[in-house]
């Protein structure tokens, strides 16, 4: 997966920046809330907080995955030192089970396509053992075939880079029955 290394590194750097911005936003928010309660909200502080929130949103919007391997590699590496790592298939399934969440949609889409092709899905714990490391998926032939399938990739890009009225709307148009 050398070909994706640069993309994943770039995403990891963006995530590090995102976390730094979160800390700044949290401090500004605390200060602003206190001012609001005291009826002396400083408009400069409010504007600064809005700017940081905009930067957070912009950064988040720009964190897209060009294909499912970039997504998997990023998830595996970005959270490895965090309280809630995505280390194993089990961690990944739990991460991708939050109703309405973007990763749940990506996961469901991949599984739909695997099932359509007669392949075992990522939800299949008999095939993809709960305790197997997530990065072992990178060697999986059925997933490599999907990444090289123009039809699959066409839809992946449609959902991943989706916008609505100029607004980033990743996977918004996708539903399980789509």
């Amino acid at each position, binding site marked *: 997966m050398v070909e994706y290394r640069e993309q994943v590194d770039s995403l990891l750097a963006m995530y590090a920046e995102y976390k730094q911005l979160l800390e700044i936003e*949290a401090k500004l928010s605390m200060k602003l809330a*206190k001012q609001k309660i*005291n009826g002396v909200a400083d408009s400069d502080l409010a504007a600064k907080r809005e700017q940081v929130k905009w930067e957070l949103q912009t950064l988040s919007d720009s964190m897209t995955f060009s294909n499912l391997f970039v997504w998997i590699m990023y998830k595996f590496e970005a959270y490895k030192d965090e309280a809630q790592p995505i280390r194993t298939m089990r961690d990944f399934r739990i991460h991708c089970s939050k109703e309405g969440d973007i990763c749940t949609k990506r996961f469901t889409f991949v599984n739909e396509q695997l099932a359509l092709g007669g392949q075992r899905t990522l939800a299949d714990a008999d095939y993809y053992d709960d305790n197997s490391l997530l990065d072992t998926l990178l060697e999986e032939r059925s997933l490599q075939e999907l990444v090289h399938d123009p039809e699959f990739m066409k839809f992946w890009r449609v959902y991943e880079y989706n916008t609505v009225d100029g607004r980033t709307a990743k996977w918004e148009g996708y539903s399980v029955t789509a």
Partner: protein
Amino acid sequence: MKPDLYLINGPLGAGKTTFLKELLKLPQYKDARIIENEFANTSVDTEQLHDHHAEVQTIAGVCICCSTGDELTNALELLSKNNTPVIIEATGIANSLRLIEKIVNADMLDVYTIRHAIFILDAIETSDNIEATLETYRHELQAADTVFVSKTDLLDAVQVEQLMDALSGLDLRQVSFANEGVFDPSLLAVESHILEYFAQLDEHIDNHEEGASYTVIDTSVVRLEASQLESVWQTIRLEYGIRRMKGNIQSADGKMWHIEATPHQCKVSSYESGALKLVIIGKDATLVTLETMREAMARG
């Protein structure tokens, strides 16, 4: 007139949902809307509130006090239309004061009146190390309009006295008991001071259990005896730094059991229906699997 907003917070397993269930039995809260926040991305507490006829909004998989998303604002806006009280039950890792920040910055004080902030303190867990626990929660205890101490019925009189003595030295607004969720409702009439407390606080506010993770175990694929789970609870708790386990299992005879476990307790009660899963929260919760639990059971 703005609807009233109530906050219920307290450590994992302190008895927040038990308290809420008792609160909802009171006539003035029978139509209250609930925002139930669950740290794990699946909720077993929502099922416990299924008897409540009014709306329950569950926000799962994110702690609303540290999320940058709009989940809380959206839920508050939605529920404000009914002009009935709204009660927020926080996650157990949430910080009440960070929750206040979210409410204020979302301009929800234009929509709601914060009526009362409740903090549930688990007497058993606190008694382990009174000084350290009270220091951890000092600001939230002081910010709360009422601190309800739960599970004092499981301590002896001397332990309860020691705990209440320690609490009396903290300059708290009101302290009372809420064993099995039963409390004195008249205490909720006291006007809230949490906004004033928050506004004057000059210290950094951290979340509790910053390093906590969660896992969800599918128990539909296995038959487990409640006694096995009770016996293994202390082992997995110590090995993986677990603070909380809750959910449902089915035993070999087909009966369903609801499990509620905190470090000192593992309560099992019969249950009629509900998703067969266990939510486990703690330091290395992601390492706990059905296999690790089975291994611990085998080791005895």
